[in-house]
């Protein structure tokens, strides 16, 4: 991506934050969001975040699907997920996940 493109991306990301965080503040009066709509406003980000991380966990460097236990990112992701479900601590989860990933990557146990 060219330099100019990245600056444009940064600008539109700023707009994305402003639209979602500030819009209802600007409206001024009270807006009640129906419960159903609220649930959908949670489904959408969950789906988007899942769609973003899934390829990083499951695809190899060449874009090939790697679901075997020899994929260090997938194993590290599973370990991190399990740890997060257990302790609900984000930073510890990141450290554990990076640790598993790095140990698998450096020791190269599967090759």
């Amino acid at each position, binding site marked *: *991506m060219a330099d100019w493109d990245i*600056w444009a991306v940064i*600008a539109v990301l700023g707009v994305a934050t402003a639209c979602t965080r500030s819009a209802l503040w600007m409206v*001024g009066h009270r807006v009640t969001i129906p419960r159903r709509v609220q*649930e959908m406003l949670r489904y959408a980000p969950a789906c988007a975040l899942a769609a973003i*991380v899934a390829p990083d966990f499951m695809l190899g460097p060449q874009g090939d699907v790697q679901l075997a236990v020899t994929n260090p990112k997938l194993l590290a992701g599973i370990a991190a997920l399990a740890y997060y479900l257990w302790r609900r601590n984000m930073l510890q989860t990141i450290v554990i996940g990076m640790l598993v990933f*790095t140990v698998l990557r450096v020791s190269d146990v599967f090759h």
Partner: protein
Amino acid sequence: MNGSRLNSGMKRGDGDDVDGHDPVAWREGFQVGLPTLFGLVAWGMVVGVAMVKSGLTVLQASVMTLVVYSGSAQLASLPLIAAGAPIGVIFATAFVVNLRFVIFSALLAPHFSHLPLFQRFYLGHISGDLTTALFLQRYPRTAPERGKLSFLKALLYPTWIAWQAGTFVGIFLGSAVPAEWQLGFAGTLAILCILVPLIINSAALCGVLVAAIVSVLAHGLPYKLGLLVAVLAGMSTAIAIEEARGRRKVRHG
């Protein structure tokens, strides 16, 4: 100390200056927010590292974090920027990821609808998940009240500073660490931790699984459109299951 308490107590209720600085409320807000600041510094560092590791320059990463101020949207945009996705796809992704803030702003904004427009804009812009939750615990009712604004500011400003400080440390740390450490993966793990609490019911879980599978299968689509296809598929799944559940409840209700 007694004097200032008395003073603010006297001002309470006269209604002229509900938004004036209230040192007692400020201190209370700061103390409530304090425990979250350490986590924010560290989380900012992760995002900072991920930004420079995905190829942004130090300047670009710094401006991004000041302008966007949304860790999840920033992390979400990084793989798309690295892959050269069209700007429309990147905007749509960040927008969808940020949609959850609409819920929080709907809860928080009515407390401050009397403030000037520009102040509402920037207070909204820097209000995140955590600060909103902490504020609503202290002030559940929306009526104007002396000290509210000071309490909110005492949550928002330190949060902003902690996050930005952490991010800048991460940006410089990240540019010093060799690429083969693959520290950018920490960003992926961070997204995983934001994702899990958003799975509020079985409909959301099914949506997330479908979105994940479709995004892997549709990964080869041009312009990273596979991502949007995956989000739409996941959303439709979640809504369909939600609808089916609703109907069942009505029938057996």
